């Protein structure tokens, strides 16, 4: 230790002229306000000049010291002087390295010290660097940068002195490191991970600084007084270090961007149903708080698939994660296909459609030739998963839009129709495999997240405007007013959910004078039920609150001022059972479970009609009339609204819950926690 201190002291004493020059600069900055024609205030002037000069001076010193810390004495044959002293090679290295760092710190203090003591604004800027988001982060970043310059200057100086083949090895090391850094930056940028990128950059700089220091120690220990040996030791060390850092960087970046689904916090993730028992889950793993990780998950089996970085922009240009996640992954109604819009690395601002078979043993997305650029606005997946309809702009916003239906996965265009009759097309819906609905003339200025609920509103009997109906078989276009709320029963035409697709509830043409309604399967065009609702029940409420069950019965949640009750019609349209659900609060059907049970939600007395307020849950036995209470929940998320086979998710007690229709129970969706 005594020898180490002697060596440090010697190096520092030898640099006395540098310290005097630094002090002179500090005094010069102190006197700057007294120079003529200085417009800034003295504190601003001293702060800005102090920071700029201190940083520049330290960087220059780092280059000079880094280049001379070992190399100058080595090349001029003077390092042997130290090696004749009774000290370890590590002591020689540590003393010289530490003395160089001390020199930088002292120089910075001497440059910035006098103006700081006299009052300078710059120090706060340095400590509270807005890029660092942490107290002292700016100072740490600048120090790290100067340290990297110091350690990198050593191999550069040594390489310039030796002029031998080891430079090729250094070049390989440098190229490897740059390539890995470039790849990692690209990867993290593709995930939009700005904060994580900053942290990774700091870790990389730290690793380079450590590697530079360690390899220079190796250079001194193995090369000692011979420059060729020193170059060999340094170059091999750098090569090994660069491979290690590059490999670690790639693994680290991959680790950051690909957390396992178990890493998602159960209390802070977004889960959206895709129909049946598939959900897509999005959340932020603690390891990278700014990376939105998405997974396809089958809760019943635990199978999952990590998805790539979410494509921002059409056709998933939504303002919330939930909306974006919802519009980036969809499952076909028949359950045969899940499609994903993923970023296309080769085409900026373009998404490529990927398709996977959820029933296969391995969940492997396959890229299709179908892409969506910035002109794509909306899209819908066919019930069979065999085609996709994309609404896209053809030019300026005033130009007519076009519907293009493409086969999956070939991308062959099956139908292309220019919507000249509709200035502002809205949402799309495959009513069946033969017919595509296009909402027309949506409210101008309507939020897109609201437009997304168009078909939910249609099913609820609300007016969603004019509907364009595209016959996909005949490739023809018709205009229709499908849903007009408040019209007489003769004009009633509502969409209604069924277990495997959409149905139409309309006035029965066979009974023009009566109150008889019929339910038409839009896929087959056949009437599946006729019914005459009781006089006290508004016909459109059947569509708004009704759901066709798997066994052909119709369940309707009927609400009036006295409370809510469940009405059960048999397959012939006869009212068979009425089950009281809750007093003085409305209820609605969420999902059909097993063994003729329904999951029902009820508003809590006194609560507002918000979407994310607390609800009560009940399991109702249709045949038994038994109502079983479940824990209440805060957020009920339905599946993508293009799907009718519901998956229902809840957030309850800080845990995402999934309604398992097979067991009629709520189960945790994720097990992770912060």
């Amino acid at each position, binding site marked *: 230790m005594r020898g180490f201190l002697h060596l440090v002291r010697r190096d520092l004493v030898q640099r006395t002229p540098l310290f005097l020059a630094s002090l002179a600069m500090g005094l010069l900055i102190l006197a700057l306000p007294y120079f003529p024609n200085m417009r800034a205030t003295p504190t601003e002037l001293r702060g800005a000049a102090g920071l700029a000069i201190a940083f520049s001076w330290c960087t220059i010193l780092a280059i000079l010291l880094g280049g001379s810390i070992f190399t100058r004495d080595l090349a001029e044959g003077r390092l*042997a002087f130290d090696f004749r*002293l009774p000290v370890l090679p590590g002591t020689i290295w540590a003393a010289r390295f530490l003395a160089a760092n001390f020199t930088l710190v002292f120089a910075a203090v001497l440059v910035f010290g006098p103006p700081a003591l006299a009052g300078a604004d710059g120090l706060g800027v340095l400590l509270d660097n807005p890029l660092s988001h942490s107290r002292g982060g700016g100072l740490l970043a600048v120090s790290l940068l100067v340290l990297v310059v110091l350690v990198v200057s050593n191999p550069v100086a040594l390489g310039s002195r030796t002029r031998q083949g080891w430079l090729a090895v250094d070049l390989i090391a440098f190229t490897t490191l740059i390539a890995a850094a470039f790849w990692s930056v690209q990867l993290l940028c593709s995930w939009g991970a700005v904060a994580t990128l900053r942290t990774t950059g700091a870790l990389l700089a730290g690793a380079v600084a450590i590697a530079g220091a360690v390899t220079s120690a190796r250079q001194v220990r193995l090369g*000692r007084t011979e420059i060729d040996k020193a170059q060999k030791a340094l170059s091999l060390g750098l090569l090994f270090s660069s491979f290690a850092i590059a490999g670690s960087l790639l693994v680290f970046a991959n680790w950051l961007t690909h957390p396992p689904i178990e890493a998602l916090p159960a209390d802070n993730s977004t889960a959206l149903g895709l129909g049946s028992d598939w959900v897509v889950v999005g959340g932020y793993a603690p390891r990278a708080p700014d990376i939105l990780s998405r997974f396809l998950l089958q809760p019943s089996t635990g199978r999952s698939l990590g998805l790539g970085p979410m494509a921002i922009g059409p056709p998933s240009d939504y303002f919330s994660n939930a909306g974006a996640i919802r519009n980036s992954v969809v499952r076909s109604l028949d359950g045969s296909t899940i499609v994903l819009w993923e970023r296309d690395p080769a085409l900026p601002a373009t998404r490529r459609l990927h398709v996977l078979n959820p029933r296969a043993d391995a969940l492997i997305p396959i890229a299709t030739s179908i892409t969506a650029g910035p002109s794509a606005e909306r899209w819908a997946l066919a019930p069979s998963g065999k085609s996709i309809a994309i609404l896209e702009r053809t030019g300026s916003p005033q130009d007519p839009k076009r519907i293009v239906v493409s086969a999956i996965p070939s991308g062959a265009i099956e139908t292309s129709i220019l919507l000249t009759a509709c200035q502002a097309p809205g949402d799309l819906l495959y009513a069946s495999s033969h017919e595509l609905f296009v909402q027309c003339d949506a409210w101008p200025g309507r939020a897109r997240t609201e437009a997304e609920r168009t078909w939910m509103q249609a099913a609820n009997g609300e007016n969603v405007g004019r509907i364009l109906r595209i016959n996909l078989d005949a490739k023809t276009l018709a205009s229709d007013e499908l849903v007009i709320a408040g019209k007489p029963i003769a004009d009633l035409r509502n969409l209604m959910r069924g277990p495997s697709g959409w149905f139409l509830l309309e006035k029965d043409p066979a009974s023009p004078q009566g109150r008889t309604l019929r339910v038409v399967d839009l896929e087959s065009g056949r009437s599946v039920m006729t019914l005459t609702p009781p006089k006290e029940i508004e016909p459109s409420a059947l569509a708004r609150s009704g759901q066709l069950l798997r066994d052909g019965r119709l369940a309707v949640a009927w609400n009036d001022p006295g409370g809510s009750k469940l009405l059960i019609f048999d397959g012939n349209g006869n009212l068979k059972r009425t089950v009281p659900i809750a007093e003085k609060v409305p209820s609605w059907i969420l999902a059909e479970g097993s063994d003729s049970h329904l999951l029902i939600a009820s508003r809590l007395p006194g609560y507002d009609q918000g979407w994310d307020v607390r609800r009560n849950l009940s399991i109702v036995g249709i045949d038994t009339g038994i109502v079983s209470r479940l824990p209440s929940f805060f957020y009920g998320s339905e599946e993508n609204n293009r799907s009718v086979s519901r998956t229902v998710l809840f957030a309850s007690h800080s845990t995402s819950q999934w309604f398992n229709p097979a067991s009629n129970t709520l189960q945790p969706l994720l097990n992770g926690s912060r």
Partner: protein
Amino acid sequence: MKLLVRDLTVRYGRTIALDRLSLNVPEGSVYALLGRNGSGKSSLMRALLGHRKPDTGVVEIAGLDPWSARHRLMTSVAATPETPDAPPAMQVDAIGKFVGSFHRRWDAAGFRGRLERFGISMNHRFGALSRGQKSLVMLSLALAQQPELLLLDDPTLGLDPVARRFVFDELITELADRGTTVLLTTHDLEGIERIATNVGILRKGKLLVEGEIETLRASAVTAGSEAPTLEALFFAHAGSEAN
């Protein structure tokens, strides 16, 4: 201090600097290693000082490997390099204090006394001294450590005749006082003849001849001739190649 060199080989790439070299340096002897430029003398010094790891063979000083135990050996081994290498910006006095701070047996008075005898000011920066003065400072530094083994790599290189005499006088005094083992390389055959007890002659990394100087001279005496000088011995062995 015992010094062992056995089958020592040092290579620089494809060039063999020392080829299975073995030396016998008796304790308390003054061993003069002679050889032409490029014969491997400096490579041997580097290996002995632990600056260079031997490619093969054994080097031991007092039973320790100079490569791995250099820091321990340097408490009792002093050396002067072929080219003076003290920090040029430091004053001679400061260099003395600096080196002295590492050695318990540091003879500060002896260091100052030698420099006075050499006529070198303590206040001069090392870099401002002449080549000869630098060599004398380096020798003074080495002697002030009062080492048990002194390794001198051509200590009279570039010195004028007066300075050369200073060097050998100092060495003679040191040897008389302390009986230090000395291994030195030199081209100053006349000067070394005054103090060397043993001699070894190197050529192209190989030891051609080795032994006590008087024995070698006696063995070279032929009928009717006088004992040859060291220079004659050297030319007889190492100088033949030049012809």
